């Protein structure tokens, strides 16, 4: 069944599990880290977003096969964009 998932699906599912783990366990190695995923696997963990992204692109240049996240982020938060339109 897992083999039927696309690379993007696998990346997203792994990212979701990492974020959940990091939010539930502050001792998780991913807690508050920037995590780069490629082809369904974690390939880089860093403290800085730019550093993580640079290394992720070096490992996998095709962005469609990558996913980036800040572990521990509250994905339910709503962000205000005051009236700029």
């Amino acid at each position: 069944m897992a083999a039927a998932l696309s690379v993007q699906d696998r990346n997203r599912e792994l990212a979701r599990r990492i974020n959940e783990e990091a939010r539930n366990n502050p001792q998780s190695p991913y807690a508050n880290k920037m995590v780069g995923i490629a082809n369904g696997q974690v390939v880089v963990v860093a403290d800085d977003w730019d550093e993580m992204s640079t290394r992720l692109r070096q490992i996998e240049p095709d962005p469609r096969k990558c996913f980036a996240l800040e572990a521990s982020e509250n994905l339910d938060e709503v962000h205000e964009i005051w009236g700029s339109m």
Partner: protein
Amino acid sequence: MARANWALRRGRPVIQIILTLATNGQALPRTLLADTGAGSRKSGFELILDEDDCLLCNGVPAFPITLSGAYSGSFPRYDIQVQIPALAFARKLRVVGVPAAPAGFDGIACFGFLNRFHYGNFGDPGQFGLET
């Protein structure tokens, strides 16, 4: 210390960034409304751009994000290389992709981005600038 200034557009503060097209590596200049009311210091995004630009510039997908106000709903987020040559600024940033940028602009430079710099008119009411 470096400073970049841009003339106001429609009386509103703007900045110019450079994206890079994935197909040929060409520079893609974009003029963004500088809006300190867009997001917060810890919003998890720094710019809002047309989603087509995010895809044309090899944006790496990230989790979508929920906005309210001028944009409302869930929007995709990407990791994109952004440059401001005059400031020797070149970093990968988290960017929200929207179906349409604000009229007259290519997107929004949010508080999280502006707050990386000193920002303001630096004594010239017809301009807006960023300073490192």
